[in-house]
């Protein structure tokens, strides 16, 4: 019959409409399980699909990358960045500027004096974090960065980029655990090698216990 195809199509949309009201209440409970963060699984995502941002937010996967951040040791306040410049070199749009520090004797100091990231150029590819040999630059999850102005605030300097290890361990628990293990292993190896000659150096950073599971809410920069 002519028109039956159209009618069948409308039945499908009607079904969706009804599901919005029948499926959604069932899922409200599941949503509440993670405060502020919604996870949608393929079969669960029926009925009303909308995430009620800003009241609830979508859970952020750990690997999510927005702008980079610099890791600063939470206990000593020491930059992990050694100003080796790999991130600045590998950056595809060349949006990282680093001034290498100098020691009083004129030799380069393994610490950046200045570190700039032009957020109007950065393409968030994550290469800086991927190729940093010191785990000193990572990708931040904070995406709520809209501003009324860009000429002053869009160039992030070292201060704005720096976060503590604690913060990083909270947002990236899995990566933190893996990297800590690698570092501990390397340290042990170095210690074993250097043991006869020098006294064991104090551990650089005690791995803070990973905080609660990431809530998905983009935390503000500390």
């Amino acid at each position, binding site marked *: 019959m*002519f*028109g*039956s*195809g*159209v009618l*069948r*199509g*409308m*039945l*499908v*949309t009607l079904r*969706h409409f009804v599901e919005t009201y029948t499926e959604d209440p069932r899922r409200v409970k599941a949503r509440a399980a993670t405060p502020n963060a919604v996870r*949608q*699984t*393929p*079969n669960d*995502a029926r009925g009303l*699909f909308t995430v009620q941002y800003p009241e609830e937010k979508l859970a952020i*996967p*750990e*690997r*999510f*990358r927005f702008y980079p951040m610099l890791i600063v040791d939470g206990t000593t306040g020491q930059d992990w960045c050694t*100003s080796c*410049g*790999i991130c*600045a*070199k*590998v*950056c*595809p749009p*060349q949006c*990282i*500027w*680093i*001034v*290498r520090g100098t020691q009083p004797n004129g030799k*380069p100091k393994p610490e950046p004096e*200045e570190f*700039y990231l*032009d957020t109007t150029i950065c*393409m*968030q*590819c*994550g*290469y800086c974090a*991927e*190729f940093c040999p010191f785990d000193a630059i990572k*990708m931040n999850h904070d995406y709520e960065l809209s501003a009324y102005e860009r000429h002053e605030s869009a*160039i992030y300097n070292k201060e704005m980029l720096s976060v503590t290890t604690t913060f990083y361990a909270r947002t990236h628990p899995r990566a933190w655990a893996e990297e800590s293990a690698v570092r501990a292993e390397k340290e042990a190896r170095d210690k074993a090698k250097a043991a006869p000659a020098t006294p064991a150096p104090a551990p650089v950073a005690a791995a803070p216990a990973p905080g609660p599971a990431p809530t998905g809410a983009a935390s503000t920069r500390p």
Partner: protein
Amino acid sequence: MAAVIDPLIHTSPAPSLDQAFPDVVSIDAGGATVVQADRLLEVSRYLRDQMGYTYLANMTAVDYPDHLEAVYHLYPMKVIGNEPSQGLIIKAHATDKDDPVIPSVTSVWPGANFQEREVYDMYGIRFAGHPYLRRVLMWDGFEGWPLRKDYHEAYYEGDTKPFASRWPGGHHVRAEERARFARNVAYPRHWDPAKATSPDESLPVVDVSELNTIHTQKFVINMGPQHPSTHGVFRMQVTLDGETVVDVMPVIGYLHRNHEKIGERNMWLQNMPFTDRLDYFCSMGNNTGYALAVEKLMGVEPPERAEYIRVIMQEFTRVQNHLFGLGQFLSDLGAFFTPILYAIENRELILDLFEMTSGSRMMCNYMRFGGVAYDLPPEFMPLAHELAFERLPREIDELEEYLTANEILHSRTIGVGVLPAEAAIGLSISGPLLRASGVKYDIRRHQPYGIYDRFDFEIPTRPNGDLYDRYLIRVAEVRQSIRILQQAFNSLPDGPILAGRKAWQIRVPKGEAYGRVENPKGETGFFVVSDGTANPYRYHVRAPSFVNIQALREMSIGFKIADIVANLGSIDIVLGELDR
């Protein structure tokens, strides 16, 4: 039902080029055939008519210190069983850099039209005999040939990255402050900016048709670059007789972001995130294409698991692209907005998978030379499994349930926007568009890359080449992709994901390579030339949208103005790669 044209099969092999044209062709160091420029047309005809190279996949140019070189990548549409078809590369040189001329091959392969215009735009090579040789990506009146090696743009900082000003003394400075008036911009001598005018964009004069007694006028209307149906910043000049389309002229370049110029300055690895932004729906596919091209040069092969992950990612990409494309297409037909809203639900769930794996929803930057960047996270498998085995099959059934039998869809699409098979091959059309015209050609099957030869899937074709077929072909391809996904999940091995160590300074051996993948929109090809350094000497993207858009004229003439919008939707263009 018209018979599906299985590509032209040649039984008797013709004499090879160097036998037929002994004094015209020579073989260069890389094994490519160099043809004397003045005999190019003759050789091209022979290649097409006698040797069966009916499909000009890619055409571009390279700027060498002493000459400009036009490069043509040809493939036969010859399929016998699953035997991979071998491509042929021919080249022609133009030695006079002040006025380089090469004969146009548009009369042999009409698909060269836009590609030659692009080469003219970027290199200034004049193609003698080209029907409409004007700038295509830049505007008329633009000064300079941007892709020549001696062209420097306003913010030029150095020939190669990384720039020395970033480290160790990297004080931030904005490029526009450093080069206020763009010192490198070549303004013509004695030119007064006060008298500058934009190029004449006035449309051709209205002409009175001499049809019968009623005085009707042909008139030209301009759609775009800001138009809700143009999928971005695409413009077309449509000549109408009443409501019937007489001519269509795509005007592009409104999103020309200089990928190739930037790509030649980047290091090899740095191009990977830029490929994301070509076809921004299918970053996984673009990544793979680029990785394939460079891997060919480097001679590395990804480990087994990485190959499987690549297939999974590409097929998910195809599913989400086709779903979104169908949604857009139906919006263009007037089905606001149910199909696209349903499609986006599924797309979002696929993007979630991309995000948890690669870190970004759209700009995945996931492939590396010799593998992939990260392993799949533990939460990937359950979700992906659920999606591939349960949700997507169900959703595609539902899509068919509410659309395929829809009478309104039928009356808008059946018999409209027909693109015949021969025309499609001639215009170098690729992807679903080609298969909807009845040509059974799919790079995954006919020149398998990665591990596609291990999967059991069909290449859907449709016989009529109209809008409805293009709708059906995408639905069928989604089903096949789901099949591939299911097989891949069932046999995904464990193991490493990257051959060798992660490295950012990559030196690629001298040579050139063309990596082509079957992206959802068609053949995405990356032509790279390496001179043995850390940066590509030439980086060219053969974008399916750019070539496929040439079909718009062919399929729209004689139909109504409203069908143009639908035709455009059915080509499924994306401006990022159309303009690059």
